[in-house]
């Protein structure tokens, strides 16, 4: 599988993603520049975290209009896999590839810390090797991460099993105190209806290197590549 990491001006988790996919996961990975249209034959596209175009208007609002996004949207519509992390998730909702929106955290503050996530489905490429009973320790780092959607969309997400992760406590309980940003129903990540586009606010790439003392995030990438790496 060939991975492509989209680089917008202001992306700042692109190198981290390339490091995890290339060096730790030993995958073929290239960076894709926002001014290009060419996806260079990539199978799996990653829209990484950061502040694309500065995010001064609204997170992800400008990035969706960049040349590369036309190709990303076409790739997704043809059934290709696209994953958005943090700012990438915001961009994918702005681009209409994922439903709902990410609003300012309910405490009005940027927050960076470890939180816990509980997988809600293992029926996607991205979650197939995860344990739905386990709480995964993964960092968040965002100011606009409060997931919001209309009641109709929310019902559709739940009915179709499109909620990938909910925020939970260390013991896996999904409750209000474990919700770091006020997200609707503790939603931390979702997929589209076709189950080929994924978005999540937490950063699994920040929990993948042994040197950082937390490798809970590796499982997410191992799911995607379909193998377990030691």
């Amino acid at each position: 599988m060939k991975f492509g990491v989209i680089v917008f001006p202001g992306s700042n988790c692109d190198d981290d993603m390339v490091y995890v996919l290339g060096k730790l996961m030993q995958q073929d990975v290239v960076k894709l520049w926002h001014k290009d249209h060419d996806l260079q034959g990539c199978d799996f596209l990653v829209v990484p975290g950061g502040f694309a175009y500065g995010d001064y208007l609204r997170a992800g609002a400008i990035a969706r209009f960049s040349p590369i996004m036309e190709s990303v949207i076409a790739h997704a519509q043809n059934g290709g896999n696209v994953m958005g992390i943090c700012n990438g998730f915001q961009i994918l909702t702005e681009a209409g590839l994922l439903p709902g929106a990410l609003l300012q955290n309910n405490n009005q503050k940027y927050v960076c810390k470890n939180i816990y996530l509980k997988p809600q489905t293992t029926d996607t490429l991205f979650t197939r090797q995860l344990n739905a009973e386990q709480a995964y320790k993964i960092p968040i780092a965002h100011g606009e991460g409060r997931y919001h959607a209309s009641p109709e969309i929310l019902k559709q997400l739940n009915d179709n099993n499109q909620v990938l992760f909910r925020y939970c406590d260390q013991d896996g309980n999904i409750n209000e105190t474990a919700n770091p940003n006020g997200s609707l129903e503790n939603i931390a990540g979702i997929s589209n209806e076709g189950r080929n586009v994924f978005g999540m606010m937490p950063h699994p790439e920040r929990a993948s290197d042994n040197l950082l003392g937390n490798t809970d995030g590796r499982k997410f990438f191992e799911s995607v590549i379909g193998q377990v790496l030691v």
Partner: protein
Amino acid sequence: MEEQLTTVETAMQLGLLIEEFEKIKGLLGRTPNFTELSAFSVMWSEHCCYKSSILWLKKLPKSSPRMLAEAGEENAGLVDIGNGLACAFKIESHNHPSAIEPYQGAATGVGGINRDIFTMGARPIALLNTLRFGDINLEKTKHLLRGVVKGIGDYGNAFGVPTVGGEVYFDSSYNTNPLVNAFSAGIVETDKVASAIALGVGNPVFIVGSATGKDGIHGAAFASKDITEDSAKDLPSVQVGDPFQEKLLLEATLEVIATKNVVGIQDMGAAGIICSSSEMSAKGEHGMDIDLDKVPLRQENMLPFEILLSESQERMLVVVEKGKEQEILDIFDKWDLNCAEIGTVTESSNVRFFQKGELVADIPANALVLGGDAPIYEHSYTEPDYFQQYKQFKTEDVPEPTDYAEVAQFLMKHPNIVSRQWIYEQYDSMVGTANASTNSPADAAVVHVKGADQAIVITVDCNGRYVQADPKIGAMIAVCESARNVVCAGGDPVAITNNLNFGNPYNQEVYWQFVQSVKGIIEACEKLETPVTGGNVSFYNQASTVSKEGGNVTNAVLPTPTIGMLGLMDNLEHRMTLDFKNVGDIIYVIGEPKNDIAGSEYLTSYHNFKESSAPHFDLEAEYDLQQTVKALIRDKQIQSAHDISDGGLFITLAESAMPRDLGFSILTTFDEIDVRKDAFLFGESQSRVVVTIKAEDQDRFEDFMKEQSVPFFEVGVVTVSDFKVDTHVLMTTEEAKDVYNNTLGRHMDGGLAHA
């Protein structure tokens, strides 16, 4: 040339002294015009030319075999870390802007220090900051704290470099004048280091990055006077930051430097174009001709002095090899940044500026800069009366408390001791996936150098209260505590950068504090073999306010010579953390307990007794302690290490117990130790470290320690869930965690309005 010549009155309005105006006329051989005089006024400001401090700064130790760029040579110090890599690191203040506009003041502080790092070709990998605020119960303090933290966060988070540590203290001396010092460390391959120099007659000079506006004009001069109630009128002196532009500038700059077509490059910070052009020219012993009409501007009709002095952020001046212009233009075009050729390097030694074809300023570069003709002052100083008086302090004069649980509670929720979680959670501490401290707390931040099997170990430290009590000892403690923190995290202290924050240098007692502090830094750095690679001096940190009676009251902040220490870890196996690991592990104190509560938070805040000496300190004992702890870590004998600092032994033990929800049980009376119980628990006498060892390692540990010169004793054991002293439970771990983790948030977000 502009005809309108200046007078001594104009010079004084611009903040120059009468004798400085005379000196300028002598250097030029004529009377300067307004543009030229403005250039001198900023370049000869304290902020740019260090005129009140340089004589003393020159005495700091600068050399070591690892030093690739010594203090003053480049924008930041450069240390060889092996593997073909070097670390560029520096600390810089943004105190005055933050006092009147905390958000932008702090944000541009982060921007400025990072440009100093990447202008050398280094990619910043970690940020630290050191902050000082006034009484936390004041609304003004909360306003400043909120603004500064949001400013640092918004800038650093978007720029994409993690903030991995720092320190914060509250003291009413900082009520009007907070301190905001930002530290950055970056990594560069030693063959890709860029220099801030102008060479090669005919080489083109480019300005790149943001357009130039009217923000921050005379910012350097503003930073060189006292903060007063009228300072808000200086608001236009504060710059406005754009982290997105800075991120683009970083990527474009590193790409351009990698082409090897860059002759020299310098960021624009204080004093803008005039500073970069004159410093690069003076360093290269060349001149520059600059056409101000070619500088991209944000607004029309800017006057020459405004363009020269503008401190608009996110800009660089670049000298490129002639013939390679297009490559540079292409890279900046790729990143959608301005890149304008505005001049050339000349054979003369003057910087000359033109507008509409007219020569508007013509100044010998050397006349403007530090190390050239910029003035140097030797101020007189006097030992203040309080100094000898504070030294009379005796622990015996203070009554022992009757309720130790109450003291423990008091300290666990003191603003100077509690967790800074409310602050650091607003900073992205993990971007870059190299901060190894997130899941493993330690006395210093450990940041992995990707591509090499090593880490940098960094920390910032200074206790202004100790420095006030005894500036020389206090500054030595700041250096040694930063080194101790690096050692306790498993690193080797290598070099320091310092940020010397003091009051008005013309006040003889303030200047005495400055001089004594520099002497302390010299002595400690020589002993530890950690040279000073550079840094920043910030004078005029005082507030003149109007008293109720109507008179002017001027107070200097606590003297605060902040030390930023760079350490190295060449073997990642040597990492050490501060948290207790297992119930039953045995707790030892290494270093000698003293019957001393001087300078402690306990004495100052609990007893409200502020006139004491610095805590006990002995440089030789400190050195021996650090060598011993280093050996214990390398030998894999200990499970945790945490140095005893603010709040004393009790707080140190609590901080080690809380991360894993553990507790401790200790004794305070020993046959061979004659120390009062409060001094034993809460005293801050220096050069002590708490370590834990597994029970089965006890014999080996004691055998090893008996061979060392450093005293040690077994103080207790790691337990399950409470803090027990002499069989009495002073707090449960749960109670402690609640107040320790949440007090600052309760102050800031309500619930503790006037606790």
